[in-house]
């Protein structure tokens, strides 16, 4: 009866998909690439992300409610748009697989150092397949459940406020950093996930254009959490320490105490599993949508299964945390490029289509 996504759930979906494993290394990235008080750049990058979303918003409005592949088909010849969609789909699928692999490797760091990740990844991939197959509307419902289950955790960090000393922030701004461009890509990668909104177009209420504000809301919420946690980290650990720690937020969580459980950071990371799975699922879903559009005769379930299985094997190639991170960074750069260039392409293409008369101006 109700197959359309509600704006509330869209906001939650975007937020849950955005928050991935990168958030734990965010303070280190800011410290290494931007220097002292590097958290300021999160504000700036957040603005860039919002601008990107606005770009997508414009493209979607221009498209007048058409789904992405249809828009591409309006101004690109069939084979070109097909190849483009397949390429983007493969990239998303590979990113998703690498994200889940990185989560597994990080988890194994703490608790399962000797296990081969293929075992866990197989299990997680089955779960991801189940989640992709239930459709985006039900995925939104699952994201809501996950959101409510994990929302207390960022607030736990507030209990560490008493250990934050203002002097640790140093009065110097953005010194001892250096690589701003590289840093831009790295930090932006933490915000990736909002491009899901481009694919939600066929699943929202027709005629209701306000749903995009939900995307902005979800993104702003993630942005706020990132900023707050990074600022906290900069005050909790000294600058030099931040540069050395691989996952500063995880280390900070190690200082949380609960009377019943010892290592709250392990527990928190365990609950984070749901968030990471949602991110990977959303990307697989986007990839499935793209591929299904190109091959409409194959059922979605099989497409998803094929994508998940094939990326499973491809991503078996890097097997160390550093190599997986390197691959992920590459994928992130591609994804960032796509998220900027694709809406631009759509905008130009739609204008061209209008000029060519293939589409009527509203």
């Amino acid at each position, binding site marked *: 009866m109700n197959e359309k996504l509600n704006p509330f759930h869209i906001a939650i979906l975007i937020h849950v998909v955005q928050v991935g494993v990168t958030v734990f290394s965010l303070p280190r990235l800011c410290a290494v690439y931007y220097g002292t008080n590097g958290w300021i750049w999160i504000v700036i990058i957040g603005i860039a992300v919002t601008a990107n979303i606005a770009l997508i918003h414009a493209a979607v409005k221009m498209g007048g409610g058409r789904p992405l592949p249809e828009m591409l088909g309006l101004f690109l010849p069939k084979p070109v748009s097909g190849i483009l969609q397949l390429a983007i789909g493969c990239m998303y699928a590979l990113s998703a697989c690498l994200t889940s692999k990185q989560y597994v490797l990080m988890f194994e760091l703490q608790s399962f150092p000797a296990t081969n990740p293929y075992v866990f990844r197989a299990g997680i991939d089955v779960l991801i397949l189940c989640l992709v197959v239930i459709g985006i509307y039900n995925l939104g419902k699952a994201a809501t459940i996950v959101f409510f289950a994990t929302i207390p955790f960022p607030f736990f960090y507030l209990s560490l406020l008493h250990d934050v000393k203002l002097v640790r922030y140093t009065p110097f701004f953005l010194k001892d950093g250096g690589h701003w461009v590289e840093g831009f890509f790295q930090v932006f990668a933490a915000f990736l996930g909002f491009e899901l909104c481009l694919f939600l177009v066929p699943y929202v209420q027709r005629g209701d254009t306000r749903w995009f504000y939900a995307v902005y809301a979800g993104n702003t919420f993630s942005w706020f959490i990132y900023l707050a946690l990074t600022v906290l980290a900069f005050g909790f650990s000294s600058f030099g320490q931040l540069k050395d720690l691989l996952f500063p937020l995880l280390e900070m969580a190690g*200082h949380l105490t609960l009377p019943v459980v010892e290592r709250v950071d392990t527990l928190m990371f365990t609950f984070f599993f749901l968030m990471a799975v949602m991110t990977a699922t959303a990307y697989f879903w986007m990839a499935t949508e793209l591929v299904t559009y190109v091959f409409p005769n194959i059922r979605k379930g099989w497409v998803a299964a094929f994508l998940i299985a094939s990326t499973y094997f491809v991503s078996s190639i890097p097997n160390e945390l550093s190599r997986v991170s390197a691959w992920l960074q590459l994928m992130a750069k591609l994804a960032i490029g796509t998220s900027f260039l694709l809406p631009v392409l759509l905008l130009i293409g739609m204008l061209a289509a209008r000029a060519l008369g293939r589409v009527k101006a509203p």
Partner: protein
Amino acid sequence: MRRAIARLVRRTGNRAGGRRTGSFGRTDGRRLLRLMGRAAAWSLPAVLSLLLSGCGTQADKRVLEELGMVSVMGFDLEKGEASDEKDSNRTTVLFPVINPMAKVEEETLSVASNSNDSRQRLARMTDRKLVFGQLRTVIYSASIAEGGLLDDLDALIRDPTIGTRVKLALSDGNVRKLLAFKHPAIPRVGRYIDLLLEKESIHLFIPQVNLHTFYRDLKDDGIDPIAPFLNPSEQSVRLDGIGLFRDDRLVGRIPADDMPYFVMLYSHFHQGTLTVQLTENEVVTLSALRSDREVRVRRKAGGVPEAEILVKLHGTVVEHFGYERFSTDKKQDELKRRIVRKVEEKCKEQLELMQRLRADCIGIGQHARRLYGYDEWIKLDWREAFAGMDIKVKAELKVKDFGIYQ
């Protein structure tokens, strides 16, 4: 609506064949899910045997009762006996014994090696699987600390199974002997040490020092790390002062009696007891002591920095020896003044010690940073500046009450 329902009810016979049950809910991959279910059912025997054999995680099984969960780890430096023998590091680990019928409650293992294979050697000495996830304290001997702790700490910090809340302590003597300390009132010295350090850090006569704080202050160029000393005596193991580090080397210490003054300068504490020796015969004890500090730095005309530390104390006087009754306000004020003077004197002593050692353990540098531009700060040798600085200590004392006896 009534008509629709009436139509439904009246309708005789139904659609051909009747709908197959279970096809009312729609999902995209309904058939895939059914297929998966069927595949799962058919492969159940294979899957079950795979599952029960651990499914790849056998290597990481850490079943609780088979573990030796190390709670305290200690490091000693043993000089080589012959002149050309290298110094070796002695590692001692302490873990509780999981055997209700055992006579001892904790077991100590110790091994010396000059290559970094202590853990492997230790593993060969016990039937338990040694794990470090429940490690709570690490103790270094003073000789290792004097040589620089960074390399030793590196292994601990890198290990993801060891949390960063592991407490750090030093010891003057032999750590192995410390961990083997036996006393009828202290059946488990590991637990004792752990509780001692935690309790004291709550009462804050030493601040809480763990791997995180040590590394944090080490990497911060405006402050130097500290660590407490634990030494055995005949009756117990006690806190015996605070070690001062310059970078990662131990360069000096604050004696046990002067610890409160150091902490007053270092940070704040909530609930302490302080005994001040005013003169030869007069001793005053303050209890329920809260202290807070404020650091003000400023640069004088020539660019030289100077600082003032304001220590605010707040407590109750509970004991005094050798002093007349102080029932009048005037007498109380005078007592307070004398206490304040003594506190300032003692604090200044600690500061001078730190300045002599060129170890800014209280973090004046962190505050002084804002007086300099970034390039200036980088070029500056803060420790020298700190050594030459003029630091004043001012104390304020508010006494809540003088007890219930006039």
